[in-house]
């Protein structure tokens, strides 16, 4: 079996440097790579570009990197929950590229699947389309979007085995599977790391070929942004 298991986040993030581009899974705070983010904070890498649907909240998720001014540029679809983000963006300290959510997901998937570019109708006629090639298919205009290029993808899965096979849980899945194999090195943290054979291959969401490093995460907080209940 190809060795993918590493002891902890410190070992998993070996090779992470300033000025790199990272992909980070998660939707809001659901399914974020809590341990890898903490390690990015500890390593204090600077000037990084983060591809992530959201930017966390002020004191959790990617908000922790924003606080320490580690992020040069964010590529996201929605950043509404973070006051420090807004401050850095409006003051010009932080570069921000806001792109449609489906385009963000597909640019990850394209990178994973070896597709350099694709056409989508999302954003046609808006400022998102500025400077992009427009082409008509079936009478409808589409804009060309490119696959992302990233150095590391930081993914969170529910269960994984030592071969790197992954299973996600609920809506914590979100962008995580699309980012596996979409960067040069994919680092996955899991809530439960098991021996090969313990995951039923029929229920594997992401095969281990897309994963370079996997480790057992710890102390998951899994913070809820909008706890909403019925009586």
């Amino acid at each position, binding site marked *: 079996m190809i060795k993918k298991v590493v002891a902890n986040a410190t070992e998993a993030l070996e090779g992470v440097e300033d000025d790199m581009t990272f992909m980070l899974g998660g*939707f809001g705070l659901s399914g974020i790579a809590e341990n890898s983010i903490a390690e990015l904070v500890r390593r204090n890498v600077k000037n990084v570009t983060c591809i992530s649907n959201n930017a966390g909240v002020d004191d959790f998720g990617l908000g922790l990197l924003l606080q320490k001014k580690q992020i040069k540029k964010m590529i996201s679809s929605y950043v509404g929950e973070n006051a420090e983000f807004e401050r850095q963006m409006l003051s010009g300290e932080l570069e921000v590229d806001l792109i449609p959510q489906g385009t963000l997901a*597909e640019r990850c998937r394209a990178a994973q699947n070896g597709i350099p570019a694709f056409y989508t109708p999302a954003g046609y006629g808006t400022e998102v389309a500025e400077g992009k090639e427009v082409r008509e298919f079936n009478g409808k205009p589409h804009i060309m979007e490119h696959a992302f290029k990233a150095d590391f993808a930081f993914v969170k899965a529910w269960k994984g085995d030592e071969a790197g096979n992954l299973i996600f849980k609920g809506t914590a899945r979100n962008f995580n599977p699309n980012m596996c194999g979409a960067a040069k090195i994919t680092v996955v943290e899991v809530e439960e790391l098991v021996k090969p054979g313990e995951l039923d291959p029929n229920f594997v969401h992401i095969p281990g070929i897309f994963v370079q490093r996997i480790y057992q995460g710890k102390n998951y907080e899994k913070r809820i942004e909008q706890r909403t209940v019925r009586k």
Partner: protein
Amino acid sequence: MLDKNGIAQRIAKEVKDGYYVNLGIGIPTLVANFVRDDIEVEFQSENGILGMGPFPLENEVDPDLINAGKQTITARPGASFFDSAMSFGMIRGQHVDLTILGAMEVSQDGDIANWKIPGKMVKGMGGAMDLVGSAEHIIVAMMHTNKAGASKLLKSCSLPLTGVKCVTKIVTNLAVLEVANGKFKLLERAPGVSVEEIKNATEGEMLVPNDVPEMQL
């Protein structure tokens, strides 16, 4: 005049048996509360669930189960989870039958603006550009005028666009309108609201048929 729940209640009548529906944040989320019990409808949330159920009981709350508004939710029997690329495949591929979303402005050509106020508010478009770029049937749920009293139904949008020529129907606190040949067409009046009041609150060109019935909720 309708309140937010009234708008949601009227839109719920547009939801048909067998529809897969994507509900945006705000008033659209309320639509689920008013869909008839005797039809089968599945709600999609673009963060990766089809078959979204009601909010959980206190002891059912799961941080790994949220909707696109980041609220905790439940999954109905028959629900499924999927990744974001597949979720937007459902949307872009027009497998979702109906999209209901909010707006800051709509133009008489069916353009919509709902993601940015330059210099003031920049939260991002989330999935809205993908939704309006592909959906065949888009209903906008919004108040007819903004907080300053200015019309949100315009000749052309002043804010950065989310999509062009895409809105098919608009339900506001005053009226139901459709976009037809570059004009708003008035279809129904909200209870107690006159055609005159709707005209006064609508900046864009509006076709007014001889008989404009009052909404049935």
